[in-house]
């Protein structure tokens, strides 16, 4: 028998107490070693062989058959739970823990957390941080101590490979900074929701990354055995292994570079060369670039190139969320509106300009988003300042906006001017520009610039340069404006060609004003060019200064080239504007539930007239088992959000099999396949909310159970039956976690611990629903026209609208019906008896006839009828999503024609802190605010609840009760747009056109 086998056998005989003692010694030694370096200890660093781990697990299970977990022997439990955390696959921690731990009682969950806390205090153990920890205060411990769970290994290595080019040497010495950097950079890598949650603890992320990337650390950050285990598991999947190797290669290179370029006390590196300049913030490089594209001889299209707004998104989670959520309006462009998420993570995008933007005006306006972000975007992406602009016609035929006012002899330029030049002098030609509000002239600067040309150029606020030519040599740079600015990737060697057209003695070159390198020019040389290597530079901005010297002529040309070194953008997700098929989704990482419930917006663009097929697959388990798969017929590009909704409805939601599969699935993938043009895909996982509802089968009976991964606060559960969506009954927590059986037609289940809420509309799946069952409609007793009562109805409506759907596919429709019923009752109660009848007609049949009834019921007064006419006429033009125009029309109509606004002045509901307005102006602002409030009441209770506090909602309702015409008008606008929207496209929204 070998020594190892003997140890294993011996370890099988250890009691829990003996395991505790052995682990205590091990972790004490490790803690002493780590504390000096500041790196924490993880429970997975237990130092046990595989056989010993098995023995420890058995000892834990055996002990549990005898007594409850003991505080005295917490270390075996800590290791046991950390091992479970390492194997955790991202779904239902406690059910799987229970399955592997016979006799486990969920009441002991706190024991696990307390044990880890004790471990952290006694052995310098890691402490989980971030939102992930706040939402899951118990399971965050074993998962954190599982270091890098299996299911995240492939994703982390992919992210490391993609972002490794953006790392900087100093980051390797600071785990928090490294983790924060990876957290930000990783957001553009289209990782899963679960990975994103994992990455919310930047310290842990940085720690793990440092351990993985630094192969020969100055100090140990993770025990060798544990690191080997993790790396071996990563290497068992070859693609992950290759990603890790690639990332390690880059890290090694960067660390060496970091060592080689340490700065001395004078801020210079060892070569006497200054490091990258601090030229403003990272947003400085972020600006709109104007380009002219030739459409014919002396005829140009104007384009604007908008940068990827990733650097803005890195300024905060709110900014990122807003950039993913909000569409961008570019009024000067022909496209006007850009799909959600299009400006994030797909590289720079060129848009055709139909109108030349006003000087220095903001170019891009977000539809929504925080005021700070809007200001930032407005300040960053602006139109060109001034009245005339020089564009250099580059070798590729395009004309690029030039910052410098110095033109080079022999080169061709286009000058854009606000004023037309009616009769240009000889040598200058009028050019046509296919963009309103701007004129163009075009000319080639003569090789010899005489007095006349100097005057001409001076009139245009330009001047000519002596000829000193500098250009990028070798690898094509990322960008080159043909003049004074070029960008390279971080790994590129910057090579420049330098040429003068006159005799010089030397060419002096310097970097960032550092040591000057004089290059003697041999007039006899056969090579008329000089090639200068600036070397490989770290990320940042540099200035290369070049000056010629000649004993014959003291006045010699000099120039500067701004060299920007940028990170390589990783692209293994297959999403890029450079590929033929481009995909954007909102949310950027949708959940399975988002897709199923039609809450994901999607746009696929591709070459005109090309077609794609779409394959939708639902999977569950490991190895994954396919539960549903379907391919669509060929679809013509582009796919818009509306056409996607129709496609998904037709091929998936209308298929009974999909409805059955979705409940069992843990992943849903959508692949758009365009043959040789490539493919793009969306992969969505089931939500992993701390409080959530899941369906399951218990003894062949379908049940719905509450899963509580938060586990920190007492949870209350209540149920609203579908037939009476306003009613509520309390349910025992034990019953809810055990699983609830439910009779058709089900209802809304809500679990909340006061901080977190999990809600689901559940309709039990039946073999086949009868027509009568399908027609089941909810009902609400007539509400009193009192604000407090109506607030309750609105909050109930918000609960229904915001809930996930579970069980039968009809649950989506039932959720909509219940929410609409509640909203209709609120509007009826406020609108009055005539309006109530109109609402009833509309509820029964949302036809043109019903719409006419609503319009008729709006008012008896002839002036106010004009508002109805404005709304009906506007509804045709407002589509698809111009909410601002709807609000403006309603406000305008109400202010001009509604009698209720003519008596007394209204004050705004909310104090904005802005400059105080005059009473009439405040009155108008209050009408605008009330109309906006009314539109939200009439269209989306969730949006209302997100926007206003309870007391504000009550105040707003009181105001509407006093001015019911406004709510009737808002409601008419909602149903009129909905009617037009439904005619044009299928929609899963509560009301079409009001998503």
């Amino acid at each position, binding site marked *: 028998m070998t020594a190892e086998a003997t140890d294993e056998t011996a370890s099988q005989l250890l009691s829990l107490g003996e395991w505790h003692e052995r682990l205590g010694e091990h972790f004490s030694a490790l803690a002493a070693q780590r504390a000096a370096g500041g790196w924490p200890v993880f429970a997975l660093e237990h130092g046990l062989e595989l056989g010993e781990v098995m023995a420890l697990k058995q000892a834990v299970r055996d002990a549990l058959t005898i007594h409850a977990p003991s505080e005295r022997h917490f270390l075996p439990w800590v290791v046991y739970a950390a091992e479970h955390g390492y194997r955790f696959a991202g779904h239902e921690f406690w059910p799987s823990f229970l399955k592997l731990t016979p006799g486990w009682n969920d009441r002991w969950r706190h024991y696990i957390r307390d044990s880890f806390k004790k471990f952290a205090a006694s052995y310098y153990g890691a402490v989980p941080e971030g939102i992930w920890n706040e939402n899951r205060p118990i399971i965050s411990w074993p998962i954190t101590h599982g270091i890098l769970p299996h299911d995240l290994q492939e994703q982390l290595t992919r992210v490391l490979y993609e972002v490794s080019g953006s790392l900087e040497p100093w980051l390797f010495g600071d785990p928090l900074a490294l983790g924060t950097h990876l957290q930000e950079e990783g957001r553009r890598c289209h990782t899963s929701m679960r990975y994103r949650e994992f990455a919310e603890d930047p310290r842990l992320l940085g720690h793990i990354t440092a351990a993985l990337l630094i192969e020969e650390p100055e100090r140990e950050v993770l025990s060798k055995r544990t690191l080997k285990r993790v790396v071996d598991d990563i290497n068992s999947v070859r693609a992950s292994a290759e990603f890790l190797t690639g990332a390690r290669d880059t890290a090694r290179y960067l660390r060496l570079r970091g060592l080689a370029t340490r700065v001395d006390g004078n801020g210079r590196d060892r070569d006497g060369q200054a490091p990258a300049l601090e030229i403003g913030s990272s947003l400085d490089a972020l600006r709109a670039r104007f380009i002219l594209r030739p459409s014919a001889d002396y005829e140009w299209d104007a384009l604007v190139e908008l940068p990827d707004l990733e650097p803005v998104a890195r300024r905060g989670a709110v900014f990122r969320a807003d950039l993913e959520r909000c569409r961008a309006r570019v009024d000067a462009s022909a496209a006007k509106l850009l799909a959600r998420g299009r400006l994030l993570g797909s590289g720079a995008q060129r848009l055709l300009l139909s109108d030349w933007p006003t000087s220095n005006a903001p170019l891009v306006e977000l539809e929504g988003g925080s005021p700070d972000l809007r200001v930032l975007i407005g300040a960053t992406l602006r139109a060109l300042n001034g009245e005339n602009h020089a564009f250099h016609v580059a070798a590729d035929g395009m004309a690029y906006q030039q910052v410098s006012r110095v033109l080079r002899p022999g080169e061709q330029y286009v000058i854009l001017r606000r004023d037309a030049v009616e009769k240009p002098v000889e040598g200058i030609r009028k050019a046509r520009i296919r963009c309103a509000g701007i004129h163009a002239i075009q000319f080639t600067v003569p090789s010899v610039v005489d007095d006349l040309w100097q005057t001409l150029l001076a009139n245009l606020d330009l001047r000519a340069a002596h000829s000193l030519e500098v250009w990028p040599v*070798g690898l094509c740079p990322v960008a080159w404006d043909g003049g004074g600015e070029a960008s390279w990737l971080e790994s590129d060697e910057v090579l420049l060609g330098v040429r003068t057209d006159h005799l010089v003695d030397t060419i002096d070159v310097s970097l960032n004003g550092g040591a000057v390198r004089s290059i003697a020019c041999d007039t006899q040389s056969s090579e008329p060019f000089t*090639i*200068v290597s600036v070397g490989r530079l770290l990320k940042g901005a540099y200035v290369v200064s070049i000056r010629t010297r000649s004993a014959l002529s003291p006045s010699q040309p000099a120039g500067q080239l701004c060299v920007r070194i940028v990170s390589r*953008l990783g692209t293994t997700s297959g999403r890029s504007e*450079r590929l033929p098929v481009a995909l954007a989704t909102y949310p950027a990482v949708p959940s399975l539930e988002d897709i199923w419930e039609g809450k994901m917006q999607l746009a696929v*663009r591709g070459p005109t007239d090309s077609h794609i097929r779409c394959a939708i697959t639902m999977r569950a388990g490991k190895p994954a088992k396919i539960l549903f798969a379907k391919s669509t017929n060929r679809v013509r590009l582009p796919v818009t959000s509306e056409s996607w909704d129709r496609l998904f409805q037709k091929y998936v939601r209308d298929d009974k099999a999909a409805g059955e599969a979705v409940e069992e699935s843990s992943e849903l993938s959508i692949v758009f396949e365009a043959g*040789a*043009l490539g*493919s793009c895909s969306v992969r969505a996982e089931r939500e992993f909310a701390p409080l959530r509802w899941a369906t399951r089968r218990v003894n062949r009976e379908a049940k719905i159970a509450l899963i509580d991964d938060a586990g920190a606060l007492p949870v209350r559960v209540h149920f609203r039956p579908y037939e009476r969506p306003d009613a509520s009954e309390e349910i025992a927590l034990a019953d809810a976690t055990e699983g609830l059986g439910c009779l058709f037609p089900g209802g809304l289940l809500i679990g909340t611990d006061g901080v977190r809420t999990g809600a689901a509309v559940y309709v039990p799946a039946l073999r086949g629903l009868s027509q009568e069952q399908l027609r089941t409609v909810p009902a609400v007793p007539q509400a009193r026209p009192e604000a407090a009562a109506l607030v309750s109805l609105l909050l109930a409506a918000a609960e229904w609208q915001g809930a996930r759907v579970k069980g039968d596919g009809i649950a989506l429709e039932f959720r909509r019906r219940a929410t609409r019923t509640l909203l209709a009752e609120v509007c009826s109660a406020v609108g009055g008896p005539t309006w109530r009848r109109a609402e009833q007609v509309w509820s029964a049949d949302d036809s043109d006839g019903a719409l006419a009834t609503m319009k008729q019921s709006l008012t008896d007064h002839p002036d106010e009828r004009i508002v109805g006419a404005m709304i009906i006429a506007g509804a045709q033009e407002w589509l698809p999503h111009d909410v601002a125009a709807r609000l403006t029309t309603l406000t305008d109509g109400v202010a001009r024609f509604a009698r209720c606004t003519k008596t007394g002045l209204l004050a705004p509901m909310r104090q904005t802190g802005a400059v105080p307005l005059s009473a009439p102006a405040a009155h108008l602002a209050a009408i605008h605010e009330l109309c906006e409030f009314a539109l939200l009441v009439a269209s989306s209770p969730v949006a209302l609840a997100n926007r206003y506090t309870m007391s504000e909602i009550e105040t707003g309702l009181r105001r509407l009760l006093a001015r019911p015409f406004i709510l009737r008008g808002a409601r008419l606008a909602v149903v009129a747009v909905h009617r037009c929207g439904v005619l044009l496209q299928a929609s899963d929204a509560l009301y079409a056109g009001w998503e």
Partner: protein
Amino acid sequence: MLEVLGVPAAHERVLSSLKLNECCTTLHDMEALAALVRRAASLSCPCPPRVIRQRVGLGVRGLVDPTAVDEERIGACLDAVTAYGDLLELPSRDEEDARNVLYLAPPAFVETAPGIVYLVGIQPEGQGMVPGRLSEMIEYSGVARRMRYSSADDLPNVLKGLGLQAMLPKLWFQQPRAEQPKDVISRYDAQLAQRTTRGDLSGLEVLDTSRNPLYYRGRWSAPGRLSGRFVGRRVQTYGAPLWVYVELDMGTPTLLLDLHSQEWSSCDEAWRLQMAIDAVNGKPQQFRADLVEGDKVIVRLFSPVPSWWQRRWNVLGRRVDVERCLMAYELSLEQYCAELTMLTDELWLRERTDTN
């Protein structure tokens, strides 16, 4: 860090950046030019071919002999990279702009035989096709990139895991069914007859069938006073030229068919149609085969052949730079013999010997 480099040293640095030190000695080599084209495309697409030609041209200015690597040679290399499948020429994605532009073909691989995969497509943003260690396994041959592997490596699955798409060889090598040249012309004539008169077309150039097929560039001409049906190109100010089949009456276009289908690229359609026209006119396009080094054959082509054919020969042999022809491939004698029948029967080419 500032350093003045001589031209050979600069070549070495650039080749090192491209990881081509092993297979190239200078930037004049086809492998090096193709890599520069792919790099420029990776950072420029979607764009017209001209942008890539100019960006590569600017990069090699001062480094190469301008008579050996001129815009024409870079253009030929770009065409070869496109024909190989690394780039796709397609209508623009912008609805307001119908011009053709080049897109990166999605990164993919084709397993042509057990143990050999060819890499096709380009990673955006200057990213390598595969991560570090694997990239050392890439062999460069003309415009082709291939990787050899043992069965234990399971390379195809690794590449899939890295995000590359597996492309079936039959899709990559797909070619139209064999037809008689007159049938090909009849098919296009029928389509052309359904088109309406387009009148004057500025920037139209046609392949003059009366001119010598041994000098492809010399066959291009303005419509002048030509009459008949011709393959041609309509130049666009910014986008790639559009291939057309046009009927001229004394130089004036009377019927015009834009050549584009979902199945084949427009240049492939045009080149094949021109081959059929030349064959029917009794002046078929020609090739010349020379035996070198005992068992290798250099096949010179004087007119472009469709991309499916170029792909096939990139795999069977390799593209080489040979003077006095439009393109040339090196094949083994055995492969050449196997291909000979297809050259004459499917592309209707005639072998040129010293006697003719």
